[in-house]
């Protein structure tokens, strides 16, 4: 199992500093590992950033890379999890010609069935938002692309873990 490639969701808590993304991505680059998706944002802790990175690799290498990430001075803590250990979602936006909404009865069904949300509508176009698993987003994309998509954009994976990550406690100890 350790030597079989699988998807891992990496969660990295860091200081909010310039250049840190470069330092983290370099660790993947030097081992010739492709990053499937990456998301950076504020975390649940004030002034602490969280990076969520999706990679495909063996668990053995995952452990080594986590060690090398944690070694970076401004990384507070890094974790890796399998899909089963996390609740994860992606988000996406579709921009579609407004005409289709009225001329193609199929479109309304697709929207209803997919639980997508209409964000805005005007004379020229409407924008559809969908959050969910990769497969759900992919399905919606396939269905809509048959009718024509003006623009499409998808976020990287965002995730929370089922088990608690002890980062807040750790920081309390560090700050005291």
């Amino acid at each position: 199992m350790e030597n079989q490639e699988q998807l891992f969701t990496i969660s990295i808590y860091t200081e909010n500093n310039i250049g840190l993304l470069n330092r983290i991505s370099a660790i993947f680059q030097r081992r010739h590992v492709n990053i499937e998706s990456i998301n950076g944002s504020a975390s649940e802790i004030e002034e602490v950033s969280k990076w969520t990175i999706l990679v495909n690799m063996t668990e053995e290498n995952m452990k080594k890379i986590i060690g090398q990430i944690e070694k970076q001075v401004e990384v507070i803590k890094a974790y890796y999890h399998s899909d089963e250990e996390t609740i994860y979602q992606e988000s996406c936006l579709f921009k579609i010609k407004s005409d289709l909404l009225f001329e193609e009865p199929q479109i309304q069904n697709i929207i209803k069935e997919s639980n997508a949300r209409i964000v805005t509508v005007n004379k020229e176009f409407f924008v559809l938002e969908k959050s969910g698993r990769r497969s759900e987003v992919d399905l919606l994309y396939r269905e809509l692309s048959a009718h024509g998509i003006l623009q499409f954009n998808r976020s990287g994976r965002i995730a929370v873990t089922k088990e608690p990550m002890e980062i807040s406690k750790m920081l309390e100890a560090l700050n005291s």
Partner: protein
Amino acid sequence: MIMKEHALINSPTSSIVTEKISGAEAIIKCFLAEGVDTAFGYPGGAIMPLYDKLYGYQKELKHVLTRHEQGATHAAQGYARISNKVGVCIATSGPGATNLITGLADAMIDSTPMVCITGQVASHLLGTDAFQETDIIGISTPVTKWNAQVTKAADIPKVLAKAFYIAQSGRPGPVLIDITKDAQFEEFDFAYEKCKSIRSYVPVPDTDLQTVKDAALLINNAQKPMIIWGQGVVLSEAEKELQSVIEKAGIPSAWTILGASAIPTSHSLNVGMVGMHGNYAPNLLTNECDVLIAIGMRFDDRVTGDLSRYAKQAKVIHFEIDPSEVNKNVKADIAVLGDARNTLELLLPYLEQREHPKWLARFKELYEVEVDKVIREDMEPSVDGLTMAEVIQQINVHSKSEAAIVSDVGQHQMIACRYASYNQTRSNITSGGLGTMGFALPAAIGAQVGAPDRDVVAVIGDGGYQMTIQELGTIFQTKVPVKIVVLNNEFLGMVRQWQQLFFDKRYASTEMTNPDFIKIAEGYHIKAKQVTDRKDLAGAVEEMMKSDEAYFLEVRVQKEGNVFPMIPTGASVSEVRLQ
């Protein structure tokens, strides 16, 4: 006039008092507060405000002008390696900054504490492709332990305090701080406080006492234990603790190239060097020992050879400060995290007094095989041509094994490390992990500056010498009394050896047509001598060691001498070749 503001910085305790000074002067005051006495560097446009202020601090802070920024980095490394202090270097933006990269990479992989200051174009020009602008933060990220750009003078004290703390704490490494020219000019209220911790940074992991006890139990029950120590022992200043452990538990102990000299060469339990060109016995017996105790070393591929056939029979105990090194290459049965000095001190009382005479005899026996097959011919050749080993032996004799040997990279380096005898620690300065040709000459300058009372001998091949030969100018100008020995075989010897052994003797681009090295040295007014004949060697080395100024000795050695033993790439340590 210039000296009037200096009273405040002499004692670190006065650091809370503020005064209005420029960012450039603040850099110097930070240096002084950190105990820096020497900086190696090269001026240029974007760093001129700092150099202007350095002019007023010549008494407090020595500046060594190298002939190339790469030379400044290696000099700072040599300084750090011999003195256990942070090496400091200064360069300008653009090409000055990019010229630091090799030295940074070398310091990164060899865990050398170093702080580099680079000038940067003024902050309003950042990102505009300004003259001599380069993204040195982006470029240096993978080869620094930490780096940061400063665009405001007020940030200088805090960032530099962090830089010095990070460079020398935990597993040391190089730090680069890029400071824009306007930040160097800008005036602000200076106050300095040393950095004592960073919340996201754990320099030394906690040691779990249970792992120490488990390690002791395994060692006490071992029949054929073997230690391999590395530079971690030197960096932690754990030489005494290591020697006590070795002696109490009676363990034959070998070293990696960067661990050399931590325990005297003559110690009865010192069984030599491991690795590609290490000694026969410790390489072979790595695959026979029952407990392998790795201390402050990282199982580099040049040490282990084929990992799938490395010490598979042994239980492995790994004493290590950097958790990411544990299980990286070799799985540890027991990992003892922490600073080697501390963990070895903890270990000692749990160890039982032991001797392993039969096991130690195996090392002696195999050493005799190596003497027969390799060492005798290296030391007392049956042919006319001089060998590199003879030269090292003469340096041992005439320095009474007290010299610090700074070696470059290649055959001569392996020979120097195999045959140098060391009485004191921090006597082996070489580029281990990166294998940087051109390292030795500038590193020797830095080492001599860092330890003015020691004999420093640079041992260099004719190839590497010419990579940084311009630093002879630094020696001439600063009068550092380094001894330079060039072992000239008119080949890039190590590559030639591989071509001979693995590439069908196709000597592609390894033969060197060399200049008159004596004339070059004399051009810099450095005393110089060439030896081509065995009968002149001892006298020349003696004269060199007695010289109280810089001395250049060129020794013409056998053109096609080879270094053995050798573990070919991809082979197991058991397959170490003697010829």
